[in-house]
């Protein structure tokens, strides 16, 4: 897809709020009219860690979790995993962050449910979030509500205190439109088990027409397996170590599926061909 020079630009964003919402998990609100105005669900921003030195060197890709075009504000959810994210977590309101984006290919929306949204028999989307994988799916959920596509939002974590971002989901007073299923491995809240158990139940019931997923590699593999078994299309959002974020350096490759045997395996770029892929496009066994 060729796009104009203006749709991915590096620009300064002012931090409006940056607060801890879980163990090592932070929610940051940034003022940036460009990103807030044109980010699509599933896209990401590539942020430069504010440091006077060259360490950490590379930008950090963060999913856009919410974007409010009218307010010119967007939200990211991130986990502190190393030096770069530790420095991000220390940012205070009023400080500025260099943001490149929005970047990448986001989620394909299902056909609209029409004015009677989510009515029985029309089929529903299933959105499956594992841990911090909820980030891009929050924005997707808002888009589904706007498109009046009914969906089940299955969100899980090891334990209740690791569930983050639920407060950012669209208001779901209309249960036909948005039904939230909380799952924890230890049973501390919601159903005990795995998100894929709940997805399996919904698939068995037969009214799921498409699945969206983001989370750990093992979860994505199981979601893809279920989708294949039930012949329901699955879109997954992937992560990979990334350098340019634009598709030029070929550093964030994942192996493509379905390349002819005997041929060299082909690779796809998470930053530009993804981060959202149809599950059948990528070799999920190869992701970490």
């Amino acid at each position, binding site marked *: 897809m060729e796009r104009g*020079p203006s749709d991915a630009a590096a620009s300064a964003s002012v931090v409006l709020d940056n607060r801890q919402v879980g163990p090592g998990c932070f929610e940051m609100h940034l003022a940036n009219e460009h990103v807030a105005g044109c980010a699509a669900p599933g896209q990401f921003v590539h942020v430069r860690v504010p440091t006077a030195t*060259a360490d950490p*060197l590379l930008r950090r890709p963060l999913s856009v979790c919410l974007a409010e075009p009218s307010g010119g504000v967007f939200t990211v959810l991130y986990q502190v995993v190393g030096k770069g994210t530790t420095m991000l977590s220390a940012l205070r309101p009023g400080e500025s962050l260099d943001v490149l984006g929005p970047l990448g290919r986001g989620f394909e929306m299902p056909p609209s449910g029409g004015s009677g949204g989510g009515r029985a028999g029309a089929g529903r989307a299933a959105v499956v979030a594992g841990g911090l994988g909820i980030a891009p799916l929050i924005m997707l959920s808002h888009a589904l509500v706007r498109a009046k596509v009914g969906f089940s939002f299955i969100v899980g974590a090891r334990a209740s205190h690791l569930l983050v971002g639920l407060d950012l989901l669209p208001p779901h007073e209309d249960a036909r439109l948005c039904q939230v299923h909380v799952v924890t491995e230890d049973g501390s809240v919601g159903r005990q088990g795995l998100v894929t158990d709940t997805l399996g139940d919904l698939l068995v019931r037969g009214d799921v027409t498409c699945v969206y997923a983001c989370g750990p590699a093992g979860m994505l593999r199981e979601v893809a397996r279920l989708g294949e078994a039930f012949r329901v299309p699955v879109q997954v959002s992937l992560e990979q*170590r990334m*350098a340019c974020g634009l598709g030029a350096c070929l*550093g964030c*490759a994942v192996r493509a599926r379905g390349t002819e045997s005997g041929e060299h395996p*082909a690779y796809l770029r998470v930053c530009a061909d993804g981060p959202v892929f149809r599950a059948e496009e990528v070799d999920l066994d190869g992701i970490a």
Partner: protein
Amino acid sequence: MGSPDLSVSIGAIRMKNPVMTASGTFGFGREYGRIFDISALGAVVTKGVTLEPRAGNPPPRLWEVPCGILNSIGLQNPGLEAFIRDEAPRLAGCGVPVIANISGDTTAEFCEIASRLEEVPGVEGLEINVSCPNIHAGGQPFASDPESVYRVTSSVRRATPKTLIVKLSPNVANIAATARAAEMGGADAVSCVNTYLGMATDTVRMRPVFPRVFAGLSGPAIKPLALRAVWEVAAAVGIPVVGIGGICSARDAVEFFLAGARAVAVGTGNFISPTACLEIVAGIRSYLEERGIRAVADLVGRAQGAVSGNAGGAGQARSGCTQ
């Protein structure tokens, strides 16, 4: 005084400024073309092109280290035919000199690519990659000794009248010797340096991070090493040197000019700031203006002249010579 003269020439290529892109960091200009007008660059050096398409290495391909990146991309590229068909015509219309980086496993492959690019409009020069560390098992480059650099350079020289740049590997005992071999083989310039071989170990899995074990180190971490290599090479050859290695700012670029580089290429710096090249061009202009220096060419090798009994000077033994 008017605006300083930023133009430089590398072989027959006249560049409006001395800043080009380093191969493999800028694709074929499409992606960065979304961010800025690439005609503002001195030149575009393309992603390495091979005769046949290459899938590249399995992931992981990147590993960040303090002030640098290890990469093991493995020359993923669409192959010469697709380059000529899909990339070169568009690049030819971008208003910027294009230097195709080419790579092969044998001298014959280099020559075939060079002769097939001879008639391709828009490609003004070739940079021959005799030093990519990722294409062979164990990271052994194709040409790490002066004799093979001479052999491949002189063969490609016969195959093309276009400007010929030899990209030197720093993973050699005597880089000045390989530079002289390139010069004697007929290169118009050398670019200096490609990535340094390094590695990283995954302490959780207790195995090397990269399936190919060794990977190429780039970024600010290698700048002092690259600068020394440029210094040695510039003292050893008469052809222009393109300085490469961790250049992220105009000040970095100026260091390379003073050490003897005629032009610079920005690689990893593009990843940190996608408009790094533009910022560096502007910064070089300011540097010259502030000091009343007329032309960027006046900076080239100036630090060498400042050192008495120049340690890397031309009087150094030419024992690595190939002829």
